[in-house]
């Protein structure tokens, strides 16, 4: 069974030979793992097709090194302009940038992580009206040099290639920030609908543009962090009002082409799972354990209509305790495999602190326990 067939079957809840695999790593982890593993393959080839924000050479090479079943491509850039950010202030540790969305964010220089939201330049309907015309489709919104080689190599290996992109919540929080966006749900719903509608249109246009260029994918991996530890940022009622119509419109475009949709949101999204299924989500990722997401409960409940990609608790992995890791992986694999609805992935990204030895133990457990006899 090829990776492409394996993932497609899991997303349709059909039997497979083994559990498919995919993962993300924090930059620091990827650097550490790569240093420990030594040269993974021709670095020149890697350098030729990576180097951008979403496709760090480390993540890229580890995906291929571990022969994962899923590959991601496209990652369109939905910023208002594609200009370089302006440095407003910096220290040895951080840099304050005004980015192409006119947002002022403070980023760490030497490590990954969400930036501090200092100020958002687009904070009123009037300012939005001045800039929305900038959101037009353009070939410049995709880093073809980076993604074509990845796409072609993934196709050559018959991996399940996903068109990867963010959805409205993720795009709009970058321009308005969480607070303005969430307040607008109550203060100015008409404005927020206009913002969401504009981004959805652009997101579909960019997908069509990639397709027209020949980037034909097997599925879509759509990112939108709309929850945190204790629940979604918005109520299910607000989800149905503000996100569902746009998700449905977006996801319908993929389904029309036979592409299942994997949807990523950190946090506890359980209150909106039924609505996500209705909107056309075929699998959820990464199922953050610390937020209460647990495939052992969710697979029996939703496993006939939804697949699960993730949920291996990184806080357990960071203990580097084999007994705990075995329990974590074996029980979650068993729950997902019972319904043919599980793809291995950590419940976030592999953080620093997980040793390479522990990570290889996880992969060994997938070999031993993740194979259907």
């Amino acid at each position: 069974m090829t990776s492409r067939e394996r993932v497609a079957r899991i997303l349709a809840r059909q039997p497979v030979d083994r559990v498919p695999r995919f993962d993300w790593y924090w930059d620091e982890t990827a650097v550490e793992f790569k240093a420990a593993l030594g040269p993974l393959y021709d670095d020149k080839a890697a350098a030729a097709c990576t180097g951008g924000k979403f496709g760090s050479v480390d993540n890229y090479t580890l995906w291929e090194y571990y022969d994962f079943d899923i590959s991601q491509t496209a990652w369109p850039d939905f910023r208002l302009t594609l200009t370089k950010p302006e440095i407003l202030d910096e220290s040895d540790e951080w840099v304050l940038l005004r980015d192409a969305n006119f947002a002022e964010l403070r980023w760490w220089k030497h490590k990954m992580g969400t930036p501090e939201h200092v100020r958002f330049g687009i904070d009123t309907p009037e300012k939005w009206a001045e800039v929305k015309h900038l959101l037009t489709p353009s070939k410049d919104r995709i880093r073809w040099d980076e993604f074509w080689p990845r796409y072609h190599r993934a196709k050559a290996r018959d991996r399940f290639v996903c068109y990867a992109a963010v959805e409205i919540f993720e795009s709009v929080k970058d321009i308005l920030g969480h607070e303005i966006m969430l307040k607008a749900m109550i203060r100015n719903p008409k404005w927020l609908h206009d913002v969401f509608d504009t981004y959805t249109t652009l997101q579909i246009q960019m997908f069509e543009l990639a397709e027209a260029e020949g980037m034909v994918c097997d599925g879509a991996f759509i990112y939108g962090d709309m929850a945190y530890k204790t629940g979604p940022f918005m109520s299910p009622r607000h989800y149905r009002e503000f996100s569902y119509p746009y998700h449905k419109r977006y996801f319908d475009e993929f389904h029309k082409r036979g592409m299942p949709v994997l949807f990523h949101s950190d946090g506890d999204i359980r209150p909106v799972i039924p609505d996500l299924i209705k909107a056309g989500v075929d699998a959820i990722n990464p199922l953050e354990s610390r937020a209460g997401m647990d495939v052992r409960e969710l697979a029996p409940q939703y496993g006939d209509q939804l697949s699960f990609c993730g949920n291996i608790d990184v806080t357990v992995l960071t203990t580097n305790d084999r007994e705990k890791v075995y329990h974590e992986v074996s029980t979650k694999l068993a729950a997902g495999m019972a319904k043919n609805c599980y793809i291995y992935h950590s419940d976030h990204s592999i953080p620093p602190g997980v040793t390479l030895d522990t990570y290889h133990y996880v992969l060994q457990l997938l070999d031993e326990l993740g194979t259907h006899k």
Partner: protein
Amino acid sequence: MSILETIAQAVINCDEEQAPKLVEQALTEGLPAAQILNEGLLVGMTEVGRLFREGEYFVPEVLIAAEAMKASTELLKPHLAKDGVKPAATAVIGTVKGDLHDIGKNLVAIMLEGAGFGVVDLGVDVTPQKFVEACQQQPVHLVALSALLTTTMPMMEATIKALRDALPTPPVILVGGAPITDGFAKTIGASGYGRDAASGAELAKQMCLKKAS
């Protein structure tokens, strides 16, 4: 329904326009500012906190209710100052050194204000020393530490140690954030753990306000 109940209800209803208007009306009717604050606005925010804790309200409702309360409190401030009314207790809050996340911390600050605390927000990436200095500059009843990264969790322990080493009578220290658990809070010597913003504020109220009054 009394004017104070109506004020509370306006906050609960996230009515940013009505709440300040009603506060103005109450002031015109001669009600003391402290009574309007304690029996109107704070009662409303306490209910908002309960609804948030129980999953009936979400972040948008909390943010707008907080705006309703903020606009109303601005009207009360000169009267409270004139009457010499001070917050029942003071909280110092911040995201620990190495962590730039602020949304969760901001929500806790909103909830603490809604619970009657005066809040000193030190922002994000706050060193242990800054927390210590803030506690030395004024009487502080509560320090609330936030972290969203597994990698910055150890900085909570360092901050707690710095506070306990530097202050003869350390304040109540509560911790919270995505990777934090009750067990971790106990391990590092925190006084308590807030699972979410509303639970944290409720716990803060229980641990500090009785002591402060």
